[in-house]
């Protein structure tokens, strides 16, 4: 049943084409869900997010492989639901999620976040968790965080002065 519904949603979804989404082969996404994912991520992360996370779509597609199939289907279903059923009426015309401006997409995210329905809050959490974690997986974002990376890439990390040793019976204050 879920598969039929998903197929129907996929058929009726007509996400906005984006030149930034160049990937054509996918493990779990398809062209439509990739475009919706892009629209979601742009709402969560902001315009131009691919500059610092150029492998964003590819990374999400890869990670979906590792999910339990039922959970993966739920995420793909949530993307299609977002596109087909979430939108705003602007100038008398209903505009679907990916066709809205970033500001309007964020209004929808805010509604999802504060919804009384747990399903909608779950969709919000899934979208922001996936987008934020995939974005900050990219090492191009790490300078913004002051994160130097890992010790196998940067062995000098292990040579930084260690924290001042302090023992439980040490009379010295730790830091004052």
């Amino acid at each position: 049943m879920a598969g039929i519904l998903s197929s129907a949603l996929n058929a009726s979804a007509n996400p906005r084409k984006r030149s930034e989404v160049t990937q054509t082969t996918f493990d779990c996404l398809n062209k439509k869900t990739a475009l919706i994912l892009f629209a979601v991520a742009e709402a969560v992360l902001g315009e131009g997010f691919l500059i610092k996370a150029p492998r964003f779509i590819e990374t999400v597609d890869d990670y979906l492989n590792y999910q339990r199939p039922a959970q993966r289907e739920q995420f793909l279903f949530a993307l299609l639901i977002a596109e087909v059923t979430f939108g705003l009426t602007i100038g008398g015309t209903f505009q679907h999620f990916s066709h809205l401006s970033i500001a309007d997409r964020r209004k929808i995210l805010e509604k999802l976040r504060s919804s009384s329905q747990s399903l909608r809050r779950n969709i919000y959490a899934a979208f922001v968790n996936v987008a934020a974690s995939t974005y900050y997986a990219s090492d191009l974002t790490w300078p913004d965080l002051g994160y130097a990376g890992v010790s196998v890439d940067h062995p000098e990390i292990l040579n930084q002065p260690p924290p001042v040793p302090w023992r439980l019976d040490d009379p010295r204050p730790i830091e004052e």
Partner: protein
Amino acid sequence: MAGTIVEGRNVPENRSLTPDFCIIGSGAAGGVCALKLAEAGFDVLVLEEGPNIPKEKGPAPGQERKMLNEREAEMYKLLYQEGATRLSKNGGIKILQGRCLGGGTAVNWSACLPPRLETLDEWQKRGLPFTRQNLDPYLREVVNYLPVVRNDKYNTSARKFMLGCRRHDIPHENLPNNTNDCRECGSCGVGCPYDRKMSGFVKWLPDAVALGASIYTDTKVDRLVSSGDQIREVQAHFIDHKTRPTKRKLTVKPKKGVVLAAGAVGTPGILLRSGLDLDKRVGKFTHIHPVTITIGRYPEKTLPAYGVPDNMWTPKFASGPTGYLIETGSFFPILSASATLQHGDELHRIMRDYYPSGAISYAHHTTGFDEEEKYGTVELDDNGDPQLDYKIPKANVNPMRESLVMMARIHLAAGANSVYIMRNPPLEVKSDAMFDEIRQIDFTRPQSASIFTVHVMGGCQMNKNDKRRCVNTDFRFRDKKNLWVTDASIFPTALGANPQVTIYSLALWAAREICEQHQRPFKFHHQQGGELPWPGY
């Protein structure tokens, strides 16, 4: 003769094997049973759903395991169940569980605590035979074999925590670790690349293989086939590097029996798929330690990723049926970003404000002591995969609020400018006056806050109560004479402590039961004296 590790993804054909024992799962319980049964002279086969962790010389100085490179994006998908995206059925709880050679021991933060005394007391009321006295030789074996040590090099999160605790006169202690000459890279949670964490793939499993045990990785068990009181066959299939099923199957016909050690989601899942849940008990009363998290923002840079992650805690709030343990840790960009529950400019501001200057403390909450409460249930989804249906018990809501208040209080006392609470919407606490906002969080409502767990227990419990018992006190599953359950799924309640030492110890006990039943020797080798590293706890 030494055994082998076979990577199932590379096996080109169907296979059939006939070991004495088939152990399902290579985590804390599976590793122990593999070693002790191999040591007793049995032909042992271990099946692990996750990948092997090959030992090769890698590109970085001192790196011994090429596969383990500390990079979150590459490691989570390899080492964790569902690529570290496992969720409870209602989506409200993130469940982090290992899925690789060594299981949870490969990815835990090395914390080593014994079972709480009051938890063991509760278990005795429910008919379990364990006391701290009769567990002593098992705990001692674990402590000396690994070894469990006191590492007193503290990272910034721990030092801030100690400072805040001192200012509030809160007792705090070193939390022992199973590490040996730790390099302080901070990456326990994505697998130690330096083999300084004494995880299953460093200790129990290589020693078992040296004694002849064989391990098949990338091997997912479909079902156990039984007739009468015997398990006759284990049916499994190999999966590829992206966890997709291959068409190649493994059939195991064990001569002596099957040991289930697939964890408190995996073990009930296998039993349910096998149709062995005749009385609808399997999967019921599953427990977690719900985890609440705080990030303090300090005036200086804190390098929160590095240093020993988990070697400081306070036992002050740990007692009681809903007590909590506050511990400290390390944190990384992906895990941090996945818990912010924020979007837009505010998401980036929070990451930029809190990551470089952050210090983390978190609390594991005890559950499971109310016999009237149903707690969680492991069930199968439409594809036959196990999922945990869990709602935060009402009795834990106030303790979860109070743990956040206490951790915020400690951060502020240590000099934090603000404390990030992963509420929806996010809350930044800057003074005691804001604690009432924490006390309004409704944890029973999914997505009202980011809630994690890294400990799942129960679902196949040992219990004297006939209506609840899945496992007998000799670790055998109900009326099956050659099926043992040895992992945390046998716990009748949550433990109230980081569980790896308890799982190791109970698995040793289970291995002794199995050996005795087959008139084979079971020996302790590491009983040297000295005080165990948990005086007073």
